[in-house]
């Protein structure tokens, strides 16, 4: 087995390439620091959805409308409507990365107030949402003023809160797995394609081909190198994110699986390009032409759901979409997303098969 000497050789060669080390490890860390500084500690939004169950047909009752208007008049709450058929807790769960909260105005809100009965307005948010207490406090203030204004006799509106069971999710939770996935892809596709083409043009490949190393060992050595670099990048990014932004996610077996399979898939794509296109500049150009659109369209920097439908379709045919989606779900929620895993696994199998087919161990 000559896989380990090949991996050792490639790792040494990588370590000596200062720009390679910068773009493989330091640049993604810089991005995490930049994104984390801009978005991680800032107010994400104070968007509040209101589900008004106290209405006549489509029109809210007078008091419900006044309560909603009072909420809307605050400067810190941005009110959006949620239809009554939607389960508010499911709605919060389904919008994992938007920090949304729902205020539920119950049926009989107006009638109960007019009868002097207590009314429960529920504020639903995600447990650990850092801004939930602020939102709740704003709703309580509005409710208090509303109570005073309409009754002057005591409290009739109680604000209660409940939480969905998701872990706290912050912006940095989104960006660490996404940028990690993006740079596993960039390292595999761009650096492997360029170095493979360079080795071919300089006669290094000829030298390796004349040694007792098979093409399978050469390919496996490349894949192993990229898997090791992916884990190095993962540890570096988690360490920096933890130190700078109190990022508290750790690697579990699902994340490890996604990182390894992702590194294999994109390294194989790089080998495919580097071997199919002999010229160094052409291989580098082709790798860039593939990697950069994939990085920006696969949801690594912003959620795919925010894109137009046509782009969403394109995103979902890109292997990086499955890697970053699956890795994020694994790292943040500790869950295994089988669809994402199937997507990246199929990509890995196809790219490895193509790389094996295109890599010629004779110079004909």
């Amino acid at each position: 087995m000559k896989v380990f000497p090949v991996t050792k050789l490639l790792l040494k060669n990588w370590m000596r390439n200062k720009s390679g080390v910068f773009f493989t490890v330091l640049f993604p860390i810089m991005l995490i620091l930049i994104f984390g500084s801009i978005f991680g500690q800032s107010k994400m939004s104070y968007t509040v959805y209101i589900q008004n169950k106290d209405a006549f047909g489509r029109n809210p009752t007078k008091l419900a409308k006044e309560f909603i208007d009072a909420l809307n008049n605050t400067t810190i709450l941005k009110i959006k409507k949620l239809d009554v058929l939607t389960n508010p807790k499911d709605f919060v769960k389904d919008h994992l990365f938007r920090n949304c909260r729902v205020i539920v105005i119950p049926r009989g809100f107006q009638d109960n107030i007019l009868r002097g009965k207590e009314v429960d307005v529920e504020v639903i948010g995600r447990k650990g949402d850092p801004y939930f207490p602020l939102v709740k406090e704003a709703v309580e203030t509005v409710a208090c003023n509303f109570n005073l204004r309409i009754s002057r006799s005591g409290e009739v509106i109680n604000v209660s809160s409940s939480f969905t069971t998701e872990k706290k999710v912050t912006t940095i939770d989104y960006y660490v797995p996404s940028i990690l996935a993006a740079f596993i892809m960039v390292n595999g596709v761009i650096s492997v394609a360029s170095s493979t083409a360079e080795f071919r043009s300089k006669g290094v490949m000829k030298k390796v081909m004349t040694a007792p190393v098979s093409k399978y060992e050469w390919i496996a050595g490349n894949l192993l190198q990229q898997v090791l670099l992916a884990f190095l990048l993962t540890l570096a990014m988690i360490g920096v994110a933890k130190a700078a932004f109190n990022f508290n996610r750790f690697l579990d077996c699902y994340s490890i699986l996604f990182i390894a399979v992702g590194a294999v898939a994109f390294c194989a794509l790089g080998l495919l390009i580097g071997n199919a296109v002999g010229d160094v500049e052409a291989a580098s150009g082709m790798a860039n032409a593939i990697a950069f659109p994939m990085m920006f369209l696969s949801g690594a920097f912003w959620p795919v759901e925010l894109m137009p439908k046509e782009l969403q379709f394109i995103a979902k045919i890109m292997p990086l979409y499955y890697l970053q989606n699956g890795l994020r779900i694994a790292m943040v929620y500790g869950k295994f997303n089988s669809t994402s895993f199937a997507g990246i696994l199929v990509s890995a199998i196809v790219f490895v098969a193509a790389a094996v087919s295109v890599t010629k161990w004779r110079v004909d």
Partner: protein
Amino acid sequence: MDKIIEVKNLVKKYGDFTAVNGLTFDVYRGETFSIIGPNGSGKTTTVEILECIRAPTSGEVKVLGYDVVKEDKKIKKRIGVLPQDFDAFDRLTVEENVRVIGEMYDSSLEVRELLEEFGLWEVRKRKYGKLSGGQKRKVGICMAIVNDPEIVFLDEPTTGLDPKAREECWSVLEKLKDSGKTIFLTSHYMEEVERLGDRVSILYRGKMLDVGDIEDLVSRYGGGIKIVIKAKDLKYIKAMVDTLGEMSVDNGRVGAGRREGVTFIVESKEEALELASKLIDIGVEFEIKEPSLEDVFLHLAEGVINERGELV
């Protein structure tokens, strides 16, 4: 003698183009066998077939008794290769380059000893990319022999080097030759082949024009000894020819070397000495040129190979 390479009717075609056309030769253990020819004559194609990285179209090729197509793994363990235009890993040091290749084999030579022997130990920590052309080629040779191979293939090992670096490289290759290893060398430098080679195959347009001991080929095709009188003045040359004609040199004939001056070609050393003494008597400057491989090539291929490897 022990045949270490056997080639019979080797043909290599690229589509309709025949790069190698029916080569047959043997290489014996311990000898330095050279292939000489201009660019495009099929040298690299032939050596790459022997190195098991190019498949022949037809013919029988055995290296160390193994078939180059079916038993390439067995061959690769026991050969060392310096590919044409080889560049190692620029960012690795001299020592690392040699070590990483050595680790690809089951066993390898002591790297320190190897680098010391080739005068590279002092620069072992220098990055390959920072070396001179001659040093780079020496590192390439070390990488070719780090596995202590039975046969070393050197494909145009000094092409592109300046004369000083080439001379350094030849010294290293002479050491290698003295170590008793079988060397398979391709080149378009006649001087290189004459200096290093034992036997030579002359290749032209994919065909072998002849093969044999260098001395034997030179004696067969090299022609006589040349005595060149350098002069640019045609009148002076004419007068010289007339004068020497009157001297009735036995078996001497006047060559047509207009650029060089006048060339007299004689068959034996005695005749050359006789003519030389007459020229000294009349105070003429001249140069004696013994027949060489270049003359052999000129005779067989009707041309000479220039510095760039082209036939002119």
